[in-house]
């Protein structure tokens, strides 16, 4: 199966010949990645440096002593670190994401219905973004990925702050980066090879997604995590000690206050969806649930009354407040398409914005440089299945 084609041919395909760009005919190959060997990595003292974390000012990620190996932010967290996963992840250009929660001794998280859990001061969420060579399942894993960045959300007394560390070329440690970074990436994806620039966000961009304005009041803006909500955590995780429901695990490990958690039968729960779920295998009766939950985790941090895109006609929260069907776009959409035209993804602005990488048009506006074919296929299937008319 030939996966390679020349730049020149593809430029012709895009109608760009004659623009004076490079006429290089370099061929692309799928890269291979190898993590540094253990010998090169110093084992850290097995105790998180909480004081340093609260200062949130380390130049090197290793100063926080979050992981047993300073090279490997994907496993073996130090004391009080627990790995977690979301039942539907926010798409980040096909990177593998390794998430850990650290809660200080003696403190507990409160369960919150519908929204992000209430984390005690001193809590830290650590997420590492690591690019595989291909999107195949067997291409995943620290040993064969290009670890790019580790993001920290640190809950200080004044609220959450964000810190971004990009991994050094030798992959032995990561260095604080405030201005963002572009990482040229070649990625195998099914029978295709895609090339794009993965974007490490500038610190100032973090709040673009991580803002929560209670009641839509912009003056009450709160910096908020996105993922750790009950519905995305109410799923099974394969811990080193065996499979366990994450909420149960958090209660058992004493980081989640069980008295604030409803009975298991009353906990909200999202579907499990990731790139390895066959969209076509989802029962028709459940497509809407899957799709709106995917839209919730990918879009609703902005596209809701309490988010940064509250001025638009698309509201993605997977509750009664979902809004989009037959809605007219409001601000600067530059199109005559309705947000959702039942029965036609292609004519729906929602899908058009997901299924493009044109700068200025693609959504979300930051954090996505590749098309998420699986997620957009899910949304397409749902939109195409909708009946009804906007007339």
């Amino acid at each position: 199966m030939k996966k390679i084609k020349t730049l020149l041919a593809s430029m012709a395909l895009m109608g760009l010949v004659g623009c004076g760009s490079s006429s290089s005919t370099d061929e692309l190959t799928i890269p291979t990645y190898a993590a540094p060997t253990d010998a090169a990595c110093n084992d850290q003292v097995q105790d998180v440096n909480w004081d340093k974390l609260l200062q949130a000012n380390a130049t090197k990620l290793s100063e926080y002593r979050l992981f047993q190996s300073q090279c490997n932010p994907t496993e073996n967290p130090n004391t009080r670190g627990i790995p977690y996963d979301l039942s539907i992840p926010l798409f980040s250009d096909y990177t593998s994401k390794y998430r850990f929660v650290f809660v200080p001794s003696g403190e507990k998280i409160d369960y919150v219905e519908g929204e992000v859990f209430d984390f005690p001061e001193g809590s830290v969420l650590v997420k590492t973004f690591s690019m595989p060579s291909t999107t195949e399942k067997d291409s995943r894993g620290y040993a064969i990925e290009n670890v790019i960045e580790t993001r920290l959300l640190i809950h200080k007394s004044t609220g959450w702050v964000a810190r971004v560390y990009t991994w050094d070329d030798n992959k032995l440690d990561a260095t604080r980066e405030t201005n963002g970074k572009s990482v040229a990436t070649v990625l195998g994806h099914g029978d295709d090879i895609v090339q794009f620039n993965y974007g490490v966000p500038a610190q100032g961009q973090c709040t673009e997604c991580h803002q929560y304005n209670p009641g839509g009041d912009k003056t009450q803006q709160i910096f908020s995590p996105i993922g750790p909500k009950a519905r995305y955590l109410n799923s099974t995780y394969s811990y080193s000690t065996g499979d366990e429901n994450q909420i149960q695990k958090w209660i058992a490990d004493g980081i989640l206050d069980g008295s604030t958690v409803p009975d298991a039968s009353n906990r909200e729960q999202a579907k499990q969806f990731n790139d390895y779920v066959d969209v076509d295998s989802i029962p028709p009766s459940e497509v809407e649930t899957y799709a709106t939950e995917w839209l919730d985790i990918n879009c609703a941090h902005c596209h809701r009354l309490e988010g940064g895109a509250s001025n638009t006609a698309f509201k993605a929260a997977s509750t009664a407040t979902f809004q989009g069907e037959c809605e007219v776009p409001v601000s600067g959409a530059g199109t005559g398409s309705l947000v959702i035209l039942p029965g036609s993804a292609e004519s729906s602005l929602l899908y058009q914005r997901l299924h493009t990488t044109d700068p200025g048009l693609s959504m979300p506006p930051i954090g996505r440089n590749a098309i998420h074919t699986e997620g957009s296929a899910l949304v397409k299937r749902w939109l195409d299945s909708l009946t009804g008319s906007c007339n």
Partner: protein
Amino acid sequence: MKITNQLKLVVAITAGITLIGCGSSSSGGNSIKKVFSCTDSSTAGARVICIGDADDLSDSNVQNELMDALLDSETGDTFVLPQGRYNLTQTIAFQGKNGDNVDVDNLTFKGAGMEKTIFDASGASADGFKIENSDNLIFEDFGVYESNNNAIKVIGSDGVIMRRIATVWETDYQATNGAYGLYPVESSNILIEDSYVKGSADAGIYVGQSDRIVVRNNTAEKNVAGIEIENSTNADVYNNVARGNTGGILVFDLPIGNGKYGSDVRVFDNIVDANNAPNFAAGCTDAQVAADTCFEGGVHIVPPGTGVIVLSTSNVEIYENTITDHKTIGVAITSYMMPDDRVAESPNENVGTEVLKYTDISKFADKYLDGWSPFVNGINIHDNKITVADGINAPEGKLINELLLGVGSLQSTLGIISGSERTKLPAIFYDGVGQLLATTPYVDGTGTPTGNSVMATIAGGIDQIAQALFDNTLEATEQGIDGAEMLPFTGTYYGTDASSVCQSANVDADNAAVNAAAIYSTDYTEVTFSDGAPLSKVEMALAALKEDTPDVATASALAQSILSDSSMTCAGTAYNGSANSATIAGVDYGCGEDDNGDSCSL
């Protein structure tokens, strides 16, 4: 991102590179000499942060220093931007809190002049500047060019000054140009002055969902819409020049469902000239148009050659403007009936109690319940000079095409106009249909007048069903339609006061009164209804000519009334707006505040 297609081709360049390779010309801009002339100040509450260094004015250093300055910002900071043209690779983003999560307000971004300090944002994925939730912002003396989306977007801020700012897309009339130039939204107390906006594929200056707005002394050219005030309240737009756009100045109120609807706008003493550009906004595909699935409320419907448009916004005063050389219409006043007549569809009384959406009652029910009205009232157009383009006789635009289909030939056939007439449309165009429906008595199935107008009946029906839905199953805030907004038959808007949409003392180049007319007669006794829907004057005239014995006299009178009628003559009390102002960091801006100049004394 590049992806291989099914033939497994590799497209090996990134979108960003594509733009750099094939994008705008940057003629002129690159020749600006880079100059660093700034001294830091650490005065608490009034720090001055110099961006760039005397020995490093590289694009990346300037961008990075600006981003770092925002991370380290304190309330009261002024960021001094060096002279020169700098390429951005990232949006300059700030959401109101610095890197330590501390609220920061009163920031000033100040360049060396709008032609001297330029950020080329073509390398950033979306906006040039996107600043949110920070009050009392000042943008001054710089330019943002070639943004892929908006040049400067401000969200959720109280107090915004954009002064001597240029937002430019250098290639004319290109659909891929960005959306908005100067774009405050969901904000309040906004002053935009002495700025230059050119080339936007949407609106050059766009103020949306905001309150207390002054837009003055700006020049907007070669945008789709020069200046647009949308879903906003208490705005003064004066002493601007809007030239060479598709439409000059727009006042829109769209059904957005955010509870933010516009009113109280004054447009005065502007030069609105020769806005005859093609409409280059990305609109709908032919397939969408064919399937009638195209949203008709965006700027892509603006008829090329339109000076001023008011769309479904009430309480708007348009006066003392010079509105010249438009090939279609000088001033258009229209309800939302024009883009979408489903605003007046009867409620679906068979909606069950299990239904969870207000839109099942009628397409716009949720928007009415949200406080939106599709109609215009309180519109006063007076003392403007309005001319149509010499030698151009080509009204066009989807917004009016259907209504005016054949009007020219109808009028010339009937001898109403001759070939030498410069235009077939009135200089002031009013749809009239909202007023008509709001005043037409609703007669029930037995032929008995109900005492309500057609629109009031529709509103009442929607209200009743919505309440029933709410009482049963609908999980939403209890709402009701504001009867006044829906123009009840017995109200003081259209029912008894003919002046609610009126014009007076508008003259052409020869100081002769201009033509003004409604497309639908506003007098229901003169209107033929077909299956409950009113016929426009054109339709009625054509129907008269198609009778077994053509009624030429009636048709001629109707064709004449399309050019000019008395429906907008000010007969009673006309809407008179009061001065609007913006208060920013304790200073009031606007007529009667910092400005008592000629415009304000008109």
